């Protein structure tokens, strides 16, 4: 399955005060002003949207927009 990166970005943009084209792969949650609860909520939304499971350990390593896109790609590969 090819994941819709635009969809991922739409979900993130909805949570932060920036434009979609500012959302580069290396933009970190911290830079985007997302605190710990926001990050948890974001991961939960990705799980629901893409029908995947992200464990707490995996979630801890997700720091940037690119990290999120990559883990979704990986989890939806099969």
């Amino acid at each position, binding site marked *: 399955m090819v994941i819709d990166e635009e969809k991922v970005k739409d979900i993130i943009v909805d949570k*932060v005060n920036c434009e979609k084209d500012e959302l580069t792969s290396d933009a970190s949650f911290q830079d985007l002003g997302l605190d710990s609860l926001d990050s948890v*909520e974001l991961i*939960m939304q990705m799980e629901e949207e893409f029908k995947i499971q992200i464990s707490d350990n995996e979630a801890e390593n997700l720091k940037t927009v690119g990290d999120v896109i990559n883990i979704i790609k990986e989890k939806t590969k099969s």
Partner: protein
Amino acid sequence: MNSRRVVVTGLGVISPLGNSTGEVWTNLLNGKSGISQIRSFDASSYNSRIAGEVKNFNLADFYPPASVGKAKKLDNFVHYAQAASKQAIEEAGLEITEANSARIGISFGTGIGGIKSHTDQVLVFMKKGHKRVTPYFVPAVIGNMAAGFVSIQFKIKGPNASLQTACATGNHSISYGELLIKSNKADVMIVGASESAVQEITLAGFCNMRALSTSYNESPETASRPFDKGRDGFVLAEGAAALVLEDYDHAMKRGATILAELVTVGMSGDANDMVMPCSDGEGAYLSMTNALTQGQVNADEIDYFNFHGTSTPLGDSAESQAVLRLFSNGKDLPHMGSTKSMTGHMIAAASAVEAVISILSIKNNLVPPNINIFDLDESLGLDLNVLNQEPVEKEVKYVLSNSFGFGGHNSSAIFKKI
């Protein structure tokens, strides 16, 4: 400890009668009702289909732009608290700095808290399972978050707490602020209460306990009718109010405009029933006499009694008996009435809003009316000379404001002209 005097230097209000003190005061003097048919959800199948809802409320008017996103995670009771606090702090001209912030505190309560978030997330839990419950569930439902979130917005670092006494929460929150200033634990306290419980689940609960008015769904503005023979329960409402309480010397030193003095808040417990008042008004009487004695004020010095007066058959009767007992020496009764005839019952926020009204009464030398007495319940022993239906112009030096909460929490705040 009692050498410190507590004064009020700022007021703020969000209510069915408007979202500023000026608007609310004008509407009160015009005898306007804030009650209408419920708009925020379909209430057509409920026995009571009316409420005092807050209208034209915009989050962005009361938060800095950077806080709006975070604020949206929380319930309206937090936003109403923020809005009322912002107004009050601005009116007080209070500058909060690194140097003074630890001496400024917050005492802000709610009765029901984030009931909308609570209900919404229970539905998520039931439909999608526990893994889908938002991490914001706890911050959004806990009632102390109004006090917490407001402190974050204004960087207020003094004592911060939240008392919960149902419909008496406002007065108890004011009382806690008074005590902290008098005991020198703070110089300034932002105090008040807020409520956003005009929601389906709370409407169901209040309806099913037969607490609400059900006979006037087609003429909502006449439904809240304290002292009228046809009164049949209270009308649910929402809102918030905040007061800036301040040590008298502190206020004088910074040249603040003093709106009134908070003499004290008298309190008592009914120890009688979960939801019914003592039928003879014993709890209310004890609360008022505590306020008068502790504040060293005589009952006949009070120019206006702002009643709890929720428009329930038993409550208005018990409170009337208690007030009459204060005047059993034959002295003339002062003006009295319930502004809930216009605002409806904002639960926790009611006594905070009524404190604001009491102070505006002192400041403007005007007693607001008690509307909707079509057929006076004469068994209460009060006549229309004291239950003014129109605003009355007179020197208002002392006001006593009562509030009583489910659980038997009684409170009587006395404010004084200064």
